């Protein structure tokens, strides 16, 4: 009896385990893995939110049915009235030919069952002045060759009508021809060519000066600030790794810079660095450490210095805390034993502290390097990437391309570059740290 119960228990323990893991896994896939994959995919397109002909991802030619149906509705009426006002046989012939062509292509387009249904549905919506919100209804895939042909025909007819309009002496009828020409041209622009461009965006950025500059800035910022943070953090950790009164005050004052939002810290430092009323700019100038009080935020070197100083201020405490925790796990007996053997403080540091601290240092470095490489808020708020892009990090450049230029194709390339760099950095560190990272978590 007891045995049976136990076995049933084991099985459901396993089931419970999977049931408890699945929600988080689904969430991680939906909010982390899928968006990154989507960014990769977006980067293969000439995809711009602010350009109606490229605001969709189109693997094949696509037709904007909403605007096409609307335009097509007017084409019939306009061409009929052109026929009436045609001044000679030649003009009338030309208009008739256009009518025939458009009729042919249009019926070929709606010979597709699905497209015909969509056209009818959109017709009803347009008749009641309802905008088409469903993008599945609004856009329809069409055959690449057909799309190109139809587009060419519409464009050449538009050109022909424009020519007649230009040569026409009679103003009102000339205007009429010009209007129809514009209508045909705009209809042609409703047929959208595929904006899949493969790796072209990547090719562009490999040759882009600004990308390499931003990458250089990011690497420089990461290496210098993390190096300073490690050196200062280790020094502070070694100094305060002892029993003393007032540990609480030290801990709190160390945690506050870490805990405040980076954007708030950036605003504070922006004030301290300000060329007119910034106290740090003022003191550094008085001490002749910088050429002028405006040096900090208006020159390339000053901008980079300012950002690194602010970052070191904000994150060194965090580094010191992680290292201090590592120091406290080193058994005191090791130091006592080596003292007995006659080792001095320096030898102890090299042969005991550093080797035993190695994994703490590497883990702290891993997190700090990744954070520094992704730097966005500090630079965006403090300098905006300026002056003249001198402090622009790759994330800031990506953000500007994505949201200021609304260019999701090219911006995604930059995001993917950040992603790949971060992946490489992590792989190197994980290799160095080895399996220690998972110790103490799985059985």
């Amino acid at each position, binding site marked *: 009896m007891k045995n049976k119960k136990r076995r049933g*228990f084991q099985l459901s323990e*396993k089931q*419970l*385990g*999977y049931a*408890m893991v699945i*929600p988080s896994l689904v*969430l*991680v896939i939906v*909010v*982390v893995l*899928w*968006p*990154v994959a*989507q*960014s990769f995919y977006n980067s293969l397109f000439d995809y711009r939110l602010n350009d109606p002909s490229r605001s969709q991802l189109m693997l094949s030619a696509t037709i904007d049915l909403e605007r096409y149906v609307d335009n097509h509705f007017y084409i019939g009426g306009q061409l009929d009235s052109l026929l009436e006002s045609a001044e000679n046989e030649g003009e009338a012939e030309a208009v008739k030919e256009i009518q025939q062509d458009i009729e042919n292509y249009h019926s070929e387009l709606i010979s597709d069952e699905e497209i015909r249904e969509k056209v009818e549905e959109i017709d009803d919506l347009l008749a009641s002045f309802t905008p088409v919100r469903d993008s599945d209804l609004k856009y329809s895939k069409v055959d690449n060759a057909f799309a190109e042909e139809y587009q060419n025909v519409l464009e050449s007819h538009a050109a022909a009508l424009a020519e007649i309009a230009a040569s026409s002496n009679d103003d009102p009828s000339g205007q009429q021809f010009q209007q129809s020409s514009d209508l045909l041209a705009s209809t042609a622009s409703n047929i959208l060519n595929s904006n899949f461009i493969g790796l072209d965006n990547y090719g562009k950025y490999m040759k882009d000066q600004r990308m390499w500059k931003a990458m250089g800035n990011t690497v420089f910022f990461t290496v210098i600030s993390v190096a300073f943070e490690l050196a200062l953090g280790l020094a502070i950790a070694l*100094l305060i790794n002892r*029993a*003393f009164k007032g540990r*609480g005050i*030290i*801990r709190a*004052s160390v*945690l*506050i*810079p870490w*805990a*405040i*939002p980076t*954007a*708030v*810290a950036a*605003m*504070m*430092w*922006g*004030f*301290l660095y*300000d060329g007119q009323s910034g106290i740090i700019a*003022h003191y550094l100038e008085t001490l002749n450490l910088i050429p002028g009080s405006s040096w900090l935020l208006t020159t390339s070197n000053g901008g980079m210095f300012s950002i690194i100083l602010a970052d070191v*201020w904000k994150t060194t405490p965090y580094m010191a*805390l992680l290292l201090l*925790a*590592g120091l406290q796990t080193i058994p005191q007996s090791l130091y006592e034993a080596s003292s007995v053997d006659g080792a001095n403080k320096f030898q102890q540091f090299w042969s005991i502290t550093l080797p035993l601290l190695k994994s*703490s240092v590497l*883990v702290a470095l891993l*997190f700090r390097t990744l954070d520094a490489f*992704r730097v966005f*808020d500090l630079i965006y708020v403090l300098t905006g990437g300026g002056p003249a892009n001198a402090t622009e990090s790759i*994330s800031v450049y*990506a*953000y500007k391309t994505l*949201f200021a230029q609304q260019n999701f194709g090219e911006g995604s390339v930059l*995001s993917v570059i*950040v*992603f790949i760099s*971060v992946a490489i950095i992590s792989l190197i560190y994980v290799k160095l740290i080895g399996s220690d990272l998972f110790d*103490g*978590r*799985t059985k």
Partner: protein
Amino acid sequence: MNKRGGIGFYLFLIIFVFLVMFPFIWVFLTSIKPPREIFSSFSWFTSNPSLDSYEAALTNRPLVRYMINSFAVSALTTILSLVFASFTAYAVTRLPIKGKGLILGLVLAASMFPQIAIISPMFNLVTDLGLRNSYMGLVIPYITISLPLAIWILATFFKKIPYELEESAKLDGASPFQTFRKIILPLAAPGIFTTGILVFIAAWNEYLFALTINSDDAWRTVPVGISMYQSQYSIPWGDISAATVIVTIPIVILVLFFQKRIVSGLTSGSVKE
């Protein structure tokens, strides 16, 4: 190294604390100066302190609204991620399932993903769901940051709970879920609380998603709202200092109350015990 500090040591500590706290001290001193004085002198103390800057900071921009927004978004994010993360961390550390290393590896990898690589599809998703300028519109992307963080920290806390208690619960006939709810959760409560603080701070400080997704002033969070105080033409340093002081006070209180927990949470993920 159980040596005690001498006078030199305490002098060093005082200088260290002063340097770390200097920006806050200066910003606080600026915030109580009359606005005219900020631009005209570098003296530390003002002879006639005033609260004008505070009044301006609260009236020129909806600072209180920013704080309510930040609080709502961070609290929702924290609760949601704690629920999912405590399940997952429990299963990964204590239940006999396969692929634990893989799951934790995935979680760790997810926490290293740069937000900039996620932002544009996330922006499209939130826009399509009609959630721009809403709390949920930020909570969904914040899961990308908070869930891996919470799972990672909670896993260390769960790991520390002795197995004997669980074994005896099993012998007494408790179902696995009962064991989790009645035995593990109460024991892990301090760890869950600590994780909650860290997740809350991470969500409170997030900038990139908040900047792009909630662009309407009434839905901005504190970090974005503060960075919008500067206008194209003038920088109202008085307002900014006062606003900074106001939004920093809750964090200072949080840190003062929970500093030990925060440190234990921060270091739990990085130190072998």
